[in-house]
C-alpha cells in the first residue's frame, strides 16, 4: 500500500466512525438491540441453501431501511459494501467451474448450478458486509463493545478492543509516515524483507514507549485496569419492539418465499 492508500483507509475508517455520532431514533436505541438484530440477520441470510438467489434479495430491506431511517449517507455505505465484491467474485468463481449441472432455465437457456451459487455467494457477501457496516454506522464501536460486554464478552477483551480502537488512527498515521519516508528515499522500489523487519522493529519500539507513557498517564489519573463507560442505556419497549419486529420479518423472509409470491402477484396483475 502506498502512503496515500494507507491514509485513505484511515480516512474511511474515521468517516464510518463519525456516522455513529448521528442523532436519529435508531442511533439512540440500546446497542444490545442492534447487535442482536444484526446477528439474527446474518444467521438467517447465511442459512439459505447454496442455490438461493431470489430469496436473498428481500433481505436488502434491512440495510436499506436502516440507512434511510438513520439518515446515513447512502453513497458511503454503498461504496463500503461494493468493496467486498472483488473478493466475493474470487471466492465464488470456482463454483461455475466445478458445478456444471444445469439448474435453471432462463428463456430457454440453461444456467449451470455453479453460476447460480456464485451469484448467491456474491449476494451473501454484500449482505454480510452491509450488516456489519450499518451496525457500526448506527451504533458506534464503543457502544458495540459495551453491548457485547453486557451480553457476556469477558472484560479483558472489551478493554482490549477499546484500547485498540483508540490508538488505531495514531499508529496508522505513524505507519503512513514511515511508508512516505521510504517512498521518498527509495525512488519507488519495493521494500525488501530485511528493511521491512527493521522498519517494523522501529515502529514496535515506538509503540512500546507509547504504551509506557500511556500507562503512566493513566495511572496518574487513577486507572485500575478497566474503562468506565458513561451512563448505561436500558433495554426498554422501543428495543423490544425493534428486536421483535426485525427478527419477525427475518424469520418470515426465511420461511416464506416472499420473492416468489411477489413475483407471481405482479405477473398475475400484469395479465
Amino acid at each position, binding site marked *: 500500500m502506498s502512503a496515500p492508500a494507507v491514509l485513505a483507509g484511515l480516512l474511511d475508517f474515521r468517516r464510518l466512525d463519525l456516522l455513529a455520532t448521528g442523532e436519529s431514533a435508531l442511533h439512540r436505541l440500546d446497542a444490545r438491540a442492534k447487535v442482536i438484530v444484526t446477528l439474527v440477520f446474518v444467521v438467517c441470510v447465511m442459512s439459505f441453501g447454496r442455490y438461493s438467489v431470489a430469496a436473498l434479495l428481500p433481505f436488502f430491506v434491512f440495510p436499506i431501511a436502516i440507512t434511510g431511517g438513520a439518515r446515513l449517507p447512502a453513497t458511503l455505505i454503498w461504496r463500503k459494501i461494493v468493496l467486498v465484491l472483488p473478493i466475493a467474485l474470487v471466492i465464488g*468463481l470456482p463454483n461455475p467451474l466445478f458445478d456444471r449441472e444445469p439448474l435453471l*432455465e432462463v428463456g430457454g437457456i440453461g444456467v449451470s448450478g455453479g453460476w447460480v451459487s456464485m451469484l448467491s455467494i456474491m449476494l451473501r457477501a454484500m449482505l454480510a458486509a452491509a*450488516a456489519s457496516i450499518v451496525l457500526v454506522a448506527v451504533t458506534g464501536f464503543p457502544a458495540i463493545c459495551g453491548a457485547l460486554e453486557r451480553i457476556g464478552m469477558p472484560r479483558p477483551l472489551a478493554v482490549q478492543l477499546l*484500547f485498540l480502537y483508540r490508538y488505531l488512527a495514531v499508529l496508522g498515521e505513524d505507519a503512513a509516515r514511515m511508508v512516505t519516508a521510504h517512498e521518498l528515499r527509495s525512488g519507488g522500489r519495493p521494500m525488501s524483507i530485511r528493511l521491512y523487519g527493521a522498519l517494523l522493529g522501529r515502529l*514496535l*519500539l515506538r509503540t512500546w514507549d507509547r*504504551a509506557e507513557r500511556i500507562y503512566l498517564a493513566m495511572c496518574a489519573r487513577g486507572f485500575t485496569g478497566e474503562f468506565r463507560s458513561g451512563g448505561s442505556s436500558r433495554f426498554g419497549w422501543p428495543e423490544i419492539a425493534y428486536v421483535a419486529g426485525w427478527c419477525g420479518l427475518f424469520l418470515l423472509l426465511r420461511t416464506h418465499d416472499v420473492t416468489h409470491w411477489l413475483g407471481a402477484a405482479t405477473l398475475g396483475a400484469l395479465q
Partner: protein
Amino acid sequence: MHMADALLSPAVGGAMCAVAAVTIAHCSRRIRNEADDRRVPLMGVLGAFLFAAQMINFAIPGTGSSGHLGGGLLLAILLGPHAAFLVVASVLIVQALFFADGGLLALGCNIFNLGFFPAFVGYPLYRWLAGTSPGSARATAAAMIAAVLSLQLGALAVVLETVASGISALPFKTFTLFMLPIHVAIGIVEGLVTAAVVAFVRRSRPGILPAAVSSGSSIAGTAMTFLAVALVLGGVGSWFASKSPDGLEWSVAQAAGAAAPGPQRTTVHVTLDRVQQEIAVLPDYGFRHEGAAAAQPQTVPHAGLENAGKARVGTSVAGMVGGAMSLVFALLIGFALKTRPGRR
C-alpha cells in the same frame, strides 16, 4: 486469509464461534489473574501496531507480489500466548466491523484460524526450538518452522470450514493441494519477518523480550493440544492482502484455473445437499433437480413433462420478477424513511 461469511453455513460458523468464545474466556481469565495493569495498555497499543504494520507492504522475492505481517507469532513472542490471542481476536473484530473483512458469522473461524494456532501451537514450538538464548540463525529457523506449521494448520482449517459448509463447489482435494503449498511459502516469509523484527528488538532493546515469556505450557501439553486440534480444525494465516491477491484468494483462483472440467461432487456435498433439501422449507423452487428429472419420464406423460418444464420456467421468471420487486420495495422504504418529516 480470511474466511468469509459468504462461504459459511450457520452450523459451521456457529460451532467455530463457540470454540473461539471458549478460548477467549480462557485467555481472559489468565490475563485477569496475572493482574498486570501495565500490560493492559501495552496489549491495546500492540493491537493497533499490528493493524498499522499490516498497512506496510514488502516485496516477496521472485513473485512480483507483496505481503505483510500476519503477526500472531510475533505477538506471542512479545506478550505470551494468552495475551497474543486476545490481541489477534480484537484486531479481527475491528476488521470485521469496520472493513467487512470476513464478516460477523465468520469471526469465530477467523479468530480460531489466525489466533489459536500461532499462539498455542506455533509459539510453544518456537520456544522449544529456539531455546533460552538463541543465536540468530537458530531463532530464524525456529520462527520459520513455527510460522509454517501455524499457517499449514490455518490453511487446512479454511479448507475444512469451507468444505463442511458446502456453499463453495471447490472439491476438498483440489482446494487442499493449492492452499497448503502456498501457505508453506507464506509461512517462510512470515517466519523471516518475525525473526527479523525479534532480532531487531533484541539488538536495540534487549530488555523487552525476556519480560514477556512465561509460556505456562509444556511441550507435552502442546503436543496434546496439537494432536487434538489437528484432528478438528486449525490454523493461522498470514493476512496476505494488499494490491496483489490474498493467499487464499490467489489459491482459490489458481485452483479454479487449473480445475478439471465437469462436476466433481464429494460425498460430503451430496450428503449436505440432501440434508439441505430436507430441512429447507422451500427447496430451490424453479430449479431442475437431478432426482426429479430422472423420475419424471416414467411417471409423467409426455405432454405433462412439457407442462412441467414450462411451469419450472414460469417459477424462475416469477423469482426474478419478485426479486426485482423486493429490491424496489426495499429502496422505496429506505427513501420514505429518509425523507419523512424530521423528528428529533
